[in-house]
């Protein structure tokens, strides 16, 4: 038993990676209506965004309600750096570099002045930052084109060749894998342990020689850089920056839900959370709402109830007007799923291992 366990742990990630890499081929075997490639690409982008958020909110314990703002900064930095209507016209990779740098700078810019702000006060500062960024992007329309969006943007390329759908998928997979490995390495590194110790007890970690301000700034910058990367990858895939409204509060909320549903502070959990939340959005919810709002079922049942005269007619009209429309159920199902997941599994699907199971060198947390 004890001999088998470590081997399985080593094998699982490789098997998972291989399965994900095979998705485009699996798609070819599946019936026409179902394509996993697209929802999975979306999962990867949200996973990168959420991995970034996990550094700040999961590891360091700083609640960020404005992570979409960093994605917006990344998206627009990428768009302005590459689009043919601007003078820069960088290639895909140099532009990604610019994007990540812009994100990190934005992270510092927000993190530095707000180091004193704590807890839920910090949460609203980040929320406000998100709203300000969105408004600035809309209002400075001479630069950002306002709600028009910037297009066309170059697709992801590799060694100078623009990638087609499959190539893009694998590139995204590669980005997620690198981010995942990188964030895990960070978690176990000196700075990662500093983040976690700040989350657990800032005063004690200061006493142990950690400089919370430095560590927090670094967390902000890492979070922002990853979020910016996610934003850039998204717009590059869509070939359009979309409008600033695409990076609003709701996106931040989705990213937050991903890391909490996955298991706050857990890197593997974040991936699972992204699959669950985005999968729920783009597959389960669509199918489920079609089922719930099936046009025939309630109508037929209510026809019989028509005998009840006024009440029956009232209900029937109501049902016909609203309830039979499947899309009218999406908010409800989404919300219900969130509440149920939290009530039945408040710690998330794959919570991080408790600290005492971590490698013994995590000395700061002891005592």
């Amino acid at each position: 038993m004890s001999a088998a366990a470590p081997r399985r742990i080593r094998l699982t990630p490789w098997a998972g990676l291989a399965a994900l890499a095979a998705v485009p081929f699996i798609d070819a075997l599946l019936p026409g209506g179902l394509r996993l490639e697209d929802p999975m690409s979306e999962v990867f982008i949200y996973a990168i965004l959420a991995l970034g958020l996990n550094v700040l909110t999961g590891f360091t314990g700083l609640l960020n309600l404005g992570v979409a703002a960093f994605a917006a900064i990344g998206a627009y930095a990428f768009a302005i750096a590459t689009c043919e209507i601007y003078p820069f016209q960088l290639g895909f990779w140099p532009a990604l570099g610019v994007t990540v740098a812009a994100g990190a700078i934005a992270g510092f810019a927000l993190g530095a002045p707000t180091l004193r702000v704590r807890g839920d006060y910090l949460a609203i500062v980040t929320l406000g930052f998100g709203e300000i960024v969105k408004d600035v992007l809309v209002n400075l329309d001479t630069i950002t084109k306002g709600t028009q969006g910037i297009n066309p943007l170059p697709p992801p390329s590799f060694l100078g060749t623009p990638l087609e759908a499959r190539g893009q998928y694998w590139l995204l997979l590669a980005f997620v894998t690198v981010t995942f490995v990188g964030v895990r390495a960070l978690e176990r590194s000196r700075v990662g342990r500093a983040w976690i110790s700040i989350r657990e007890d800032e005063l004690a970690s200061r006493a142990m020689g950690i400089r919370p301000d430095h560590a927090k700034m670094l967390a902000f910058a890492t979070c922002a850089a990853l979020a910016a990367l996610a934003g850039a990858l998204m717009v590059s895939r869509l070939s359009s920056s979309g409008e600033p409204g695409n990076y609003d509060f709701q996106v931040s909320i989705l990213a937050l839900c991903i890391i909490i549903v996955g298991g706050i502070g857990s890197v593997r959990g974040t991936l699972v959370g992204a699959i669950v939340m985005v999968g729920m959005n783009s597959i389960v919810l669509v199918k489920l709402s079609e089922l719930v709002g099936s046009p025939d079922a309630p109508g037929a049942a209510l026809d019989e109830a028509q005998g009840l005269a006024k009440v029956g007619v009232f209900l029937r009209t109501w049902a016909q007007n609203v309830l039979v429309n499947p899309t009218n159920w999406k908010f409800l199902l989404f919300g219900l799923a969130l509440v149920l997941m939290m009530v039945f599994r408040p710690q998330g699907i794959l919570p991080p291992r408790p600290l005492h199971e971590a490698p013994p060198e995590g000395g700061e947390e002891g005592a």
Partner: protein
Amino acid sequence: MQRAVAAAEQLAILALARADGLPAFAADGALSSWEVFGQQLVTGLSNGMIIALIAIGYTMVYGIVELINFAHGDLCMLGAFFALTAVGALGMSEWGGAGGAVGLVSLLVATAFFCGALNWSINRLAYRPLRKASKLSLLVSAIGASFILVNLGLFWGGMPMDVFAGGNSSAAPKAFPALVEPEPAAHLGDVIVSRPDVLVLLVTVPLMGALTWLVRFTKLGKAMRAVAQNPTAAALMGIDVERVIGATFFIGGSLGGFATVVYSIYNQTVSFQMGYRMGMDAFIAAVLGGIGNLPGAVLGGLLIGVVRAMSDQYIETRWTNAVVFGILILILVFRPSGLLGAKLREKV
């Protein structure tokens, strides 16, 4: 034939527009810059008081369970639908005089009860099972609750009633009848204080007084403060913590109910999406004043209302949100626990 009549009517409408519509301002006279300022102040304070009323309910709950309650605004939204249904079913917009006043008071109380009961139930179903879990799980549960409430509002707006436009488009905003006519109650120069402005004042100030009294001087208030400070110690002293939390949710929700009726009469619009802005404003106001601090929430609400009005006037409407959030961030940078909030205790 019919078309000819219609065409004649249209010409008449056009003529009316020319004769009647255009000189409207000539009679009014241009506003002097002081009058503009005064009018904006009145608008800002009225809006601010409504925000404050939502925010105190918000901040009360926060003070006890430390929950950023994303569902609070949407709770108010459902309250508005409840009020609109009542108004429509009873034909209240036709009531005048004393009947109207009694009706208005009953509407306020009924909506407050509805919102209070709803908030209590949400706590029971979505938050109470998570009492031992992390704050963030609670937050996600609140987000989920908010989505559910939004969807219920969407369903509600599709009810085949006249006030909901016969239910033909559930997503469209609904008109809330002007139970208090938007007519001037007082003129201060050219600055108009309208009757809805007065209504806001008449509802908000007594409620704030009553709440202060409740928290300061009643047994329940004492228990609430004790639970907020230290739930374990409160439980050890024989306080039924869950009951106190339930009561707080009820009271916080019912304040939202009062606020939403005033809001609906003031703005004359109800929409299933209005909860987002209501909740957001309340959240900002509560944080600005210092979370959990009742006078702080009032101060925060008034400040937001006035800043919004002034920014609309003297900057540009499109920058107003950014200005509000910019001021919020600045204040928090210099006063990290809000205007009136107690300094966060560093652990010792």
